[in-house]
């Protein structure tokens, strides 16, 4: 099957406007007859469900959480991008488009990214109208800050809780539709299968997590906004429940998984402290606006710090290596995430790490505290402030900007980051890969749509900070509600589907067999223990640096682990009750398949680009070497069965507006 991106014709800047103006519409009286299932209530799902409800469709919305407001989007800290150019620093739709394509290392589709940049502006308007309390300046206007990989200030934020506030906006819009009866909400329901009727997506099988019973739901089409799969690595910055099951079940029904190996490792996370650790905590990228990243120049100093004989404070200025500023003078500490993460890894690999594990670098605010302190003293009319006064004033400014992050750091580590430089290390954070979708956000299965982190669409091989929130809301508020009409306008005569049709009953039976099969293994190892082992394999061989030998080895190890899982996993309790271990087992089982596909994709891509760094393909200075001649494509994998090789389909990427260049941040 050929992959048609369905990109509309016309000049880049006019594609979306023209397309929207000529799209098929569904008349209001017909909308009422059409049912849509939306799975997920994160930014992508909640915004889509609310908007579709407002438009008059009958929406059924699902989340495995106890409330739509708890989706993982709630945890996003730093901000959301939009090409508003309120800062008057030369930003524009084109520049946001350009930065996103470049940041993604030229592995995304021009038309989708341009549209994203265009609608970014509407998102901010919408959020403000909903009551999102974004940060403001003294004139009462919206404030902006900078994120990595760009040279303008276009990031809108709500203290360090931007995701929370945006999600609450979408959740409130969704709640309004629930009250109006246009959206029927199913909390604590986990989608475990996709149902196809005559090749089109027409429903889902969901498990009621309270009773444990399987339930069948039918509709004219299905939208997945089910988030990313970072937890395949076990340790990540994602919430504990994030998983790939909904997307993977769609893959098993024929949907293609695109660029699965493109995962993002975020440079600034709190380092792991022990084996019991259940997750890693992100320190927002916004910190790199003011924090300077460094390690000691001398190995002896690093060793002394690791052993607790010295602290960061004891290292003289000339003995510090601010390695990002040194290697990338143009962008300094604000290089994109993949670049920053690899540079930290290199420093630690050289023996310069500063935590007992050897895996940490410093993120230091001393210079910023002094700078802000001086400027504040000046603005208060102090002429000769003491160093203590300057520090005090500077710390207050830093606290206003990042207070909650500093507090969180102290809660977790027990160290005060105002006094001691933070210790940070890269951690898995985001997955650029996801279900393959065309310009309409429709997968290769007609009637199955994917939005937000669940699809692969906009970030290429590396996502820029503050762009995931933008994409989730763009998809849900401003893109999908229109493009879905392209499919539904042909369905207005299709009668309602019955969830008692044989396709549904069959899918339910298969799901039940799988659940019962798993619980009846009654082996000796916990689900958690398998998840941890998978995570170690993924991190070691398919993490920040990858090579062919390692990937081949990993593939074999994952297959063996999967076999062991189906022989020896132990799941307590029964299927027909509230059973979190059974839920986890489903998710880990799917990770065990997805992990292998990620490894295969990484093995297949003989180049280094964005978050995918193949050690064989690097320059003498250790920079990534892309191969545009052979790999300027999206890999879309078709699942062929349990033991069979997946089949690779390629969507060639055509760049008509941007010249492919070696990404340089020097």
């Amino acid at each position, binding site marked *: 099957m050929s992959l048609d991106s369905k990109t509309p014709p016309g000049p880049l800047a006019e594609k979306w406007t023209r397309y929207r103006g000529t799209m098929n519409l569904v008349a209001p009286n017909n909308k009422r007859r059409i049912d849509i299932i939306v799975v997920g209530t994160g930014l992508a799902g909640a915004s889509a469900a609310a908007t579709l409800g407002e438009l008059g469709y009958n929406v059924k919305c699902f989340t495995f959480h106890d409330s739509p407001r708890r989706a993982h989007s709630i945890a996003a800290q730093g901000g959301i991008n939009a090409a508003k150019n309120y800062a008057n620093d030369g930003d524009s739709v084109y520049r946001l488009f350009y930065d996103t394509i470049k940041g993604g290392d030229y592995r995304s589709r021009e038309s989708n990214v341009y549209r994203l940049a265009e609608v970014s502006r509407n998102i901010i308007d919408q959020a403000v109208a909903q009551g999102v309390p974004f940060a403001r300046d003294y004139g*009462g206007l919206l404030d902006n800050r900078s994120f990595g990989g760009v040279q303008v200030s276009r990031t809108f934020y709500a203290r360090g809780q931007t995701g929370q506030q945006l999600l609450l906006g979408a959740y409130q819009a969704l709640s309004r539709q629930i009250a109006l009866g246009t959206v029927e909400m199913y909390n604590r329901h986990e989608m475990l299968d996709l149902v196809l009727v005559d090749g089109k997506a027409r429903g889902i099988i969901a498990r009621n997590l309270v009773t444990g019973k399987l339930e069948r739901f039918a509709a004219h089409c299905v939208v997945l906004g089910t988030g990313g799969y970072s937890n395949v690595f076990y340790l990540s910055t994602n919430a504990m429940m994030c998983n790939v099951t909904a997307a993977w079940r769609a893959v098993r029904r024929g949907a293609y998984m695109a660029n699965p190996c493109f995962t993002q490792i975020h440079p600034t996370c709190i380092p792991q402290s022990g084996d019991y650790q259940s997750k890693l905590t992100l320190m927002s990228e916004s910190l790199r606006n003011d924090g300077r990243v460094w390690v000691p120049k001398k190995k002896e100093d690093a060793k002394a710090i690791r052993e607790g004989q010295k602290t960061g404070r004891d290292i003289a200025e000339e003995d510090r290596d601010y390695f990002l500023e040194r290697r990338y003078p143009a962008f300094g500490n604000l290089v994109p995430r993949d670049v920053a993460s690899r540079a930290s890894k290199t420093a630690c690999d050289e023996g310069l790490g500063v935590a007992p594990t050897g895996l940490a670098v410093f993120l230091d605010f001393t210079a910023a505290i002094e700078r802000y302190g001086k400027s504040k003293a000046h603005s208060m009319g102090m002429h000769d402030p003491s160093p203590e006064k300057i520090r005090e004033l500077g710390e207050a400014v830093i606290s206003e900007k990042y207070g909650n992050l500093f507090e969180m750091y102290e809660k977790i580590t027990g160290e005060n980051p105002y006094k001691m430089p933070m210790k940070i290390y890269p951690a898995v954070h985001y997955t650029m890969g996801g279900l393959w979708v065309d310009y309409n956000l429709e997968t290769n299965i007609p009637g199955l749509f994917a939005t937000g982190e669940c699809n692969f669409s906009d970030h290429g091989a590396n996502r820029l900070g503050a762009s995931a929130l933008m994409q989730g809301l763009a998809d849900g508020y401003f893109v999908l509600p229109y493009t879905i009409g392209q499919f539904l306008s042909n369905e207005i005569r299709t009668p309602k589907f019955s969830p008692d049709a044989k396709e549904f009953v069959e899918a339910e039976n298969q799901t039940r067999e799988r659940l019962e099969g798993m619980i009846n293994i009654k082996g000796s190892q916990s689900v958690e223990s398998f998840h941890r082992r998978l995570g170690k394999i993924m991190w070691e061989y398919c993490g920040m640096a990858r090579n062919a030998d390692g990937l081949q080895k990993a593939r074999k190890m994952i297959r063996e682990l999967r076999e062991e899982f189906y022989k020896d996993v132990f799941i307590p309790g029964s299927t027909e009750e509230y059973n979190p271990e059974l839920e986890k087992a489903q998710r880990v089982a799917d990770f065990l398949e997805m992990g292998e596909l990620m490894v295969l994709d990484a093995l297949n891509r003989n180049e280094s680009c964005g978050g995918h760094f193949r050690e064989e393909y690097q320059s003498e200075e250790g920079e990534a070497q892309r191969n545009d001649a052979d790999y300027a494509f999206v890999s879309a994998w078709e699942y062929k069965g349990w033991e069979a090789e997946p089949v690779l389909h390629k969507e060639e990427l055509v760049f008509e507006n941007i010249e492919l260049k070696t990404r340089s941040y020097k």
Partner: protein
Amino acid sequence: MKLTLKIWRQKSLKEKGRFETYKVEANPHMSFLEMLDVLNEELIAKKEEPVVFEHDCREGICGTCSMVINGEPHGPMGGTTACQLHMRHFKDGETIVIEPFRASAFPVMKDLAVDRSALDRIIQAGGYISVSTGAAQDANAVPIDKDTAGHSFDAAACIGCGACVAACPNASAMLFVSAKVSHLALLPQGKVEAKRRAQAMVKQMDLEGFGMCSNITACEAECPKGISVENIARLNREYLSSALGSETVA
């Protein structure tokens, strides 16, 4: 560190619960939930049923974790959710009592997990601004004073955990309701519907079986996000005092 845990075990909504005692060995750097993970892994190794507790972000922002630790919702540390609490705040040899949030509007589903969907229904009753997608004007069209926006944010920081309800002897949800009312009413966009919103939300709160507020302020003391009882005062003063006025919702 060696700990004794007394944990509430309850098989389902219908069955009666009781405390069970467990021993566990923890490390001071662990989070409280990681300590429970260790216990659960041990129970699973013995083929026993692990303790069900809800959690997700483990960063204090999703509001999922919910348990009463030694008599306090989210435990002894102020401004901290259970997931952000670390074992370094407990002593070696200590006995820790862990039970679910207690309120008739929050039925226990299993062990420490309770049903808090009543809070969603309160939001559905009016906790939003009635604006449809695409109907918004430019975001900078209406400037909002920095301090006002800040106060609105302070109220908007509520994570919907329900600790305020669990802390209140009357099991009132007033702090939760007043936080949402204040968040929206302080902004020009949300002011228009403010009265109606407040009345509808309070009415739903009553219907859900939450108790009355009698100004005990235990809610504020236990709220992990520092939501202030000033919000309750604002709600009473500005929006409920005129409940008999013409804007009363039916």
